[in-house]
């Protein structure tokens, strides 16, 4: 545990990518199985415990620490795990902590009622760094700025194997990854992975620079498509087995049986997961109701059926076609979809365009009338390259919508900004009252933040814990990507990706938007 705590600290604090990789590969090279395998699972987010959850940790701590003092501390530190590690009041014990493998076993076999006692005794025995690492690993939220990819890069670095080769087997193996380490260290062949279970890293786009990139692009070189407002998925169908991966390589097949059970043919497709009937996409809000769930309810499947709008093909049957140009992959995709009649897959149409001005108009109309997120531009001659290669795929997001709102509530921020009121709820007029439409925090400059903080303190009309209700007098100009109907908000409207553009000290609240103006932002469906 000591070595793992030390590794986590280096990863959290070393800004240099190379030094992080160095520390990781040193750790993997010097730590025995199965400890290093469990460490790898923790670092890549693959580890989770059924019964050890943040709530349990909090409960364990609150048995020892005054809840109000805990709340003030959490408010200040801004990270639950770190608050728990720092606030734990008992230190001592000379016994070393168990090894990672022993800890994993303890957390798995200890019956639920005994867990608080176990965790308490571990926290007391731990040194401060170990306590921090222990809490981080049990809550599963490392928040140390480490990507799974970096951990895999370190494995490549340590073994001299190809990163791509490691990524390809990754989704077919599981902790403690002994077969992976056996292969990396030359004691066995590469693990044999079922083709259907193998996630292929995706090709990502870069935001377009309207001034620099756009004038240089021509329709002869770049094909345009809509940017759909769903989530990016990879669908793998092979010999009757179907897998569905999110962009980060998480397997989400179980949540979408209505898709995976109704796919025909063998292929690896890239596309957008959407919900809606007859291939008419509903809002992202609707899709969200089906995301982040382990399984799907019959009600959800009936009301919000899912489908895939495909826009690329990586494998045609068993043939890897990623090296072919986009034009050819597109032709293969079209051929596949007409050969194998599909119920839950359609194709993302290619948009005709002749120049940037025309495309801008199309993009604006798509956003206003259909709620599209923008357009994509793809180099026709480009192969399918994993990662975010420059110059091949561009996304051109729609312009944000802007509306004047009135500040309603302010909440103290976390961490560095915990002494300021930096989370804001704002609303618009509905008759004579202001109703909330969104919440955001804000990258004001420190000076603005201070001034705003002063205004909030001077205009508070009520306080509830860390939240202050203020006079409805200050106007915020808020930008957002789209508006949707919502029954969670009293106003009936929810904003997607709202952010505060600026404070309109000059503008009277009476001139802020009305709810009717907001409703006009919602695309008719």
């Amino acid at each position, binding site marked *: 545990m000591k070595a793992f705590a030390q590794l986590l600290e280096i990863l959290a604090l070393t800004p240099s990518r190379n030094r992080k990789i160095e520390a990781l590969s040193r750790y993997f090279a010097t730590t025995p199985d199965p400890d290093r395998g469990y460490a790898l699972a923790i670092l890549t987010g693959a580890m989770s415990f059924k019964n050890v959850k943040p709530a349990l940790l909090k409960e364990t701590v609150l048995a020892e620490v005054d809840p*109000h003092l805990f709340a*003030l*501390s959490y408010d200040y530190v801004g990270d639950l795990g770190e608050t728990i590690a720092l606030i734990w009041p008992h230190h001592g014990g000379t016994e070393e902590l168990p090894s990672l493998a022993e800890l994993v076993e303890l957390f798995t076999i200890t019956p639920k009622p005994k867990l608080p006692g176990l965790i308490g005794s571990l926290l007391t025995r731990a040194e401060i760094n170990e306590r921090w690492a222990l809490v981080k690993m049990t809550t599963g939220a490392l928040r140390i700025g480490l990507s799974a990819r970096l951990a895999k890069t370190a494995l490549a670095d340590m073994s001299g194997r190809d990163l791509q080769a490691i990524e390809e087997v990754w989704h077919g193996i599981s902790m403690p990854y002994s077969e992976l380490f056996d292969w990396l260290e030359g004691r066995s062949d590469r693990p044999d992975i079922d083709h259907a279970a193998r996630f292929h890293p995706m090709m990502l786009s870069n935001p377009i620079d309207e001034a620099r990139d756009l004038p240089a692009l021509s329709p002869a070189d770049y094909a345009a498509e809509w940017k759909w407002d769903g989530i990016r998925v990879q669908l793998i169908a092979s010999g009757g087995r179907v897998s569905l991966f999110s962009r980060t390589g998480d397997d989400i097949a179980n949540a979408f049986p209505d898709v995976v059970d109704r796919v025909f043919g063998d292929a690896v497709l890239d596309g957008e997961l959407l919900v809606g009937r007859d291939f008419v996409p509903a809002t992202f809000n609707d899709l969200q109701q089906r995301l982040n769930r382990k399984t799907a309810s019959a009600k959800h499947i009936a009301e919000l059926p899912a489908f895939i709008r495909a826009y690329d093909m990586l494998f045609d049957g068993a043939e890897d076609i990623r090296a072919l140009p986009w034009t050819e992959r597109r032709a293969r995709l079209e051929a596949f979809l007409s050969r194998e009649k599909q119920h839950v897959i359609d194709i993302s149409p290619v948009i005709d365009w002749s120049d940037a001005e025309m495309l801008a108009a199309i993009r604006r109309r798509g956003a206003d009338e259909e709620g599209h997120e923008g357009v994509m531009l793809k180099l026709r001659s480009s192969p399918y390259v994993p990662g975010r290669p420059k110059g091949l795929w561009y996304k051109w997001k729609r312009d944000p919508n802007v509306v004047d709102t009135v500040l309603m509530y302010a909440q103290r921020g976390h961490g560095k900004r915990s002494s300021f009121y930096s989370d804001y709820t704002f609303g618009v007029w509905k008759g004579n009252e202001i109703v909330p439409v969104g919440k955001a925090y804000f990258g004001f400059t420190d000076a603005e933040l201070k001034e705003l903080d002063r205004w909030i303190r001077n205009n508070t009309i009520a306080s509830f814990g860390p939240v202050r209700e203020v006079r409805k007098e200050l106007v915020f100009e808020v930008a957002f990507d789209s508006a949707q109907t919502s029954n969670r908000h009293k106003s009936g409207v929810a904003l997607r990706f709202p952010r505060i553009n600026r404070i309109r000290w000059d503008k009277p609240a009476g001139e802020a938007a009305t709810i009717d103006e907001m409703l006009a932002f919602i695309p008719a469906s």
Partner: protein
Amino acid sequence: MAQPFLDRDLRVRPIDAYIDPPVPRERAIITHGHGDHARSGHGAVLATPDTIAIMKTRYGEDCARTFQPLPYGEVLEMDGMRISLHPAGHILGSAQVLMEFGGQRIVVTGDYKRLPDRTAQPFELLECDLLVTEATFGLPVFQHPDPALEIRRLLASVAAYPSRAHVIGCYALGKAQRVISLLREGGYDAPIYLHGAMIRLCALYEELGIPLGPLLPALDVPKAGLEGRIVIAPPSAVKDRWSRRLPDPVLAVASGWMSVKQRARQSGVELPLVISDHVDWNELRQTVAETRAQTVWVTHGREDALVYYCQQQGLAAEPLNITAYDDGPEDVE
């Protein structure tokens, strides 16, 4: 308790003097030389001889009209009041102010710490009716470790990276000298290199009898000459271009705030050293209990938690919200 003879802006009513006033006053009692407590432009200043020496070094000989040195423990009688200064353990010369008037004892701690420190006179516990305390680290998440352990971590890092310089961000007054002295205690005899802003105050500490071992200016040393060396600089210099002159520097900061890793990470600190010149949560509570004060006022820092805690203990407690002592939490040391 009867109406205290101290106002909530730390005006000592019977003698019309202010303790650590943020604006120029005719009479000021200064607890210690840090910029948020000691300002220039007062009329008559009462302080310990070391604090007066520090003020003159920082702000010039004429930074106040007159200076009255009051050594630790000596009692000054004035208009029916007894005033004395007692070590606060915070930095060299730092003092708590003990005042007695009409049968009431009031202690204003200024900034203080209770851990041993070779560069500051050791904290003295004073019983009183009203305790006016700081609460810089007034949250239960602040439990300062043994500074010797932090120094060991630093020396281990120096040994592990022989081709890198270690630059330690330290407040120029107090923290810098303490870190140097802790390094010496930890067995580090090599020269320690100083950023220009450190030189004057280190020299003053030596003049006042605090040995710091071999010190050299970092300026003019060629880059390669600083490989494997320790450099002391103000926190602001650590993060800006100044430290780029150093060979592949490990950025360290010595401060009580460094216990929060998320925060160290956000500010780009690679080696956080939790070395504080203030009491931590446990010592705050210990002090409140041991002074046997029935009333506690909290000048600055994380007042909410300490006030709440005192009230839970059945004490009268309130925050004074003296924001002048709080300009940017990272700098209050």
